[in-house]
């Protein structure tokens, strides 16, 4: 057994020292009626070569950007991942370590998280960031809970242009917390409707939660939303599902956001069929102690050498138990490390350049698609790297046609919104070549161009 080192002789000696005669005796405290009297029906162990064959056979049944031209986005993005990241996170000192409870032998993890926290603050324009949450959706739910704690209010306005799975997650988290969750409709541009927002805001409102860019790819007017929600004493929670956009866009902090959460998958983390990803979470100075999740802080040792530790743990569940800011008791350590390495490689110029490529490719695609008969761009708002397309013949038919030409053309909005059967969400990143975009356009047109 390649993962278990015990030889028969080891077992014999150890049992003798323990003072029992068989391995079975070790389980004597388990009532006999509870013992499993058969083998687990999990089959024979696979040799390593068989296992790899099997996983490759399964993997071959999945369509990816390697097998298809892919225009899938909607909260998970196909960006290039430099080889350096995998090389570094594969160092076992990083990936086989646990939570850095012992700072003297965890400075690698701790310093990297401190750098991660700094990068997130720089990108979002906020004062403090935690060591990460499970993903953008759960981070969004935690932001709602935090706004409730911070304001003592129980009414939450949720933009209906948020990612539908984020909305669903917020609803799950809040299910038994006696909160009012109210959706704010969209305007014709695809952003949160400003007039409706003003109508719905009141002095019971803890927060407005909106996307930047939102689920439809549209860049919301955060300044106006911040002004409106601040006017009633509420918080603006900004949700960034595609943070590459922040390479170009004004930071939410600059525009007045109070809590910024988002999905960090774009930063060098594999798509991996939906996870593990990276929820980032950033707040203003005054809210640090009500923020959920782990935090790393700088300090020094007895000899004055700089070092880093987990800090402000008094907010957390292992100390505060039922009074904790959250029940979360891990962070996405390795994913945060990937993002840190990714952002370090890109740097100031790179993040802007990548964002620029995404924008340019998406704009190119938009222009071509808008010009096709039978297709339109129903939303007028400014977008970054994804946008909604409407097809007269219906989204399902179109997407099926694309599939036959080896193209994953986008996400049918019918999946989330009843009645949107003609619309689908198209995402174009720096990974899509002009050739691929042209092929998409040509296939949309029915291959008749």
């Amino acid at each position, binding site marked *: *057994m390649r993962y278990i080192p015990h030889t028969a002789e080891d077992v014999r000696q150890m049992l003798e020292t323990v003072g029992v005669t068989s391995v079975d005796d070790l389980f004597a405290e388990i009532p006999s009626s509870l013992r499993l009297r058969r083998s*687990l029906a999990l089959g024979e162990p696979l040799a390593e070569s068989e296992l790899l064959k099997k996983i490759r056979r399964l993997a071959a049944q999945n369509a990816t950007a390697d097998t298809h031209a892919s225009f899938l986005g909607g909260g998970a993005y196909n960006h290039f991942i430099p080889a350096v990241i995998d090389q570094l996170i594969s160092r076992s000192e990083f990936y086989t370590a*646990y939570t850095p409870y012992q700072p003297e032998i965890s400075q690698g993890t701790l310093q990297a998280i401190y750098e991660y926290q700094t990068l997130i603050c720089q990108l979002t324009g906020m004062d403090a960031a935690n060591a990460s949450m499970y993903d953008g959706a759960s981070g969004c739910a935690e932001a709602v809970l935090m706004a409730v704690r911070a304001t003592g209010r129980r009414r939450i306005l949720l933009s209906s242009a948020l990612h539908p799975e984020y909305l669903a997650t917020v609803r799950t988290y809040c299910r038994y917390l006696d909160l009012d969750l109210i959706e704010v409709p969209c305007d014709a541009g695809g952003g949160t409707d400003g007039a409706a927002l003003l109508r719905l805001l009141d002095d019971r409102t803890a927060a407005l939660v909106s996307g930047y860019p939102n689920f439809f790819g549209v860049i919301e007017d955060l300044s106006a939303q911040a002004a409106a929600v601040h006017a009633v004493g509420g918080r603006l929670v900004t949700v960034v599902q595609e943070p590459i956009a922040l390479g170009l866009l004004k930071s939410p902090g600059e525009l007045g956001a109070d809590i910024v959460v988002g999905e960090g998958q774009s930063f060098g983390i594999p798509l991996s069929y939906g996870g593990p990803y990276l929820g980032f979470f950033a707040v203003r100075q005054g809210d640090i102690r009500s923020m959920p999740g782990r935090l790393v802080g700088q300090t020094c040792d007895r000899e004055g050498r700089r070092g880093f530790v987990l800090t402000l743990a008094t907010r957390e569940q292992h100390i505060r138990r039922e009074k904790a800011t959250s029940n979360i008791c891990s962070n996405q350590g390795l994913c945060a490390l990937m993002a840190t390495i990714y952002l370090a*490689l890109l740097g100031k110029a790179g993040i802007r350049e990548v964002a620029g490529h995404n924008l340019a490719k998406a704009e190119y695609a938009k222009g071509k698609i808008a010009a096709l008969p039978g297709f339109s761009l129903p939303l007028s708002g400014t977008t970054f790297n994804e946008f909604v397309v409407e097809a007269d013949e219906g989204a399902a038919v179109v997407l099926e046609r694309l599939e036959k030409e080896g193209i994953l053309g986008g996400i049918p909005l019918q999946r989330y919104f009843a009645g949107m059967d003609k619309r689908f969400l198209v995402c174009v990143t720096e990974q899509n070549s002009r050739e691929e975009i042209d092929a998409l356009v040509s296939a949309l047109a029915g291959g008749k161009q």
Partner: protein
Amino acid sequence: LNEKLLFEHSDAGRKGYSLPRLDVPPARLPAALVREEVSGFPELSEVDVVRHFTRLSTWNYGVDSGFYPLGSCTMKYNPKVNEVAARTPGMAAAHPSTPDHLSQGALALMHDLQEALAEISGFPAVTLQPAAGAHGELAGMLMIRAWHEAQGNSRKKVLIPDTAHGTNPATAALCGYEVVPIASDGVLSAAAVAAAMGGEVAALMITNPNTLGLFEAQIREICQIIHDGGGLVYCDGANLNALMGIARPGDMGIDVMHFNLHKTFSTPHGGGGPGSGPVGVTAVLAPFLPVPVVVEEQGTYRLEVDRPLSIGRMKAFGGHFGIMVRAWAYIRSMGGEGLKRASEMAVLNANYIRARLEGTYHLPYTARSLHEVVFSDRDLGGNCHTLDLAKRLIDYGYHPPTIYFPLVVKGAIMIEPTETESKEVIDEFCDAMLSIAAEAGENPDLLHQAPKKTRVGRMDETGAARKPRLKWEK
């Protein structure tokens, strides 16, 4: 070697990244939307970045560095082939919104994992969505509450023994429950549960084996009492590594349990995450599982989202798929007999440590241990405490055990060896523990000043919390 922060290495104009030439016309956003630059972002070449993180890594200690007996964390060896499996391009590059019929490999693997976890635990239905143990707890407790609500029943209390993980009360609170602690005497007695049970009690949250490493021998009776009172039983599955192939929580009367794939099923801890926290439930609770659920029909798999009684989504997409691949690879590599052997050897290792240290270290609870053993610092000489012992172990080349937990043991030293450690490793560790106990009496300063062989010594944690510095600034 010291290593500066990324930002301190930075020099204007460097880049460690390359893009192809832009093959479409450049585009611009309206100027009002555009920021100047990402102020403060580092500028580094590829070699700068590689050296930086390579050096940082050398200040860490992982399972591959040596013995890591962190109690309750099951720091077993993380097989390398599982890393390869998770990186298989067709798995790692699969987009979560790919149509089901083009994701059959991923879905088949998830379904197979669901079935395997069901078989191991004895629960007929499993969700893979939760991101970590605490997230699974939340999902589990939400299902319990949803079940009660579906019965028109709005009980508000949850019983939690004093040996519980801190996440248990935190989770109960997130579900709108009030926590009622129950005292145990190492092992929870049916009588104590019976005394606490009442019409207001929605559930009991229990850990089995508990955080003292002891089997809750009255579990069947306890479940019966809760059920008879109209409640449900939640089990924290953190300690499942003691039971695989030995006994199944689903057979004990438990209604809901989460799994920690990053503990029992060997996926790496990643310096704090990502984990994965699937949840198994009884048939009664199955309709309440979060969506999506992977369903098989005649050899074809699909993500089912239309489940009217579901508690909803715990997060976006289907869960930590990359972690599931690793856990699946582990289960398939071990087979049923292999998993049983793992639990057996994990328990043997813990008992062997107990036998070797028991005369020297104080053992507050003496019932037979399963996969972990909890000592206290009571008998340590020289005014040395658990923290000093832990730091001294670092100088001996070991990661310390979990300390000061569970709270019911003063100065707790919670040791979980796991099955992947050989007798040789365990013996050397026990020798070190015995040697430190001797040092405590003879030369306590060795403990108080420890660690000495690390890059930094004991940190000023109070200062860190009093005036938090949470990011770098120029």
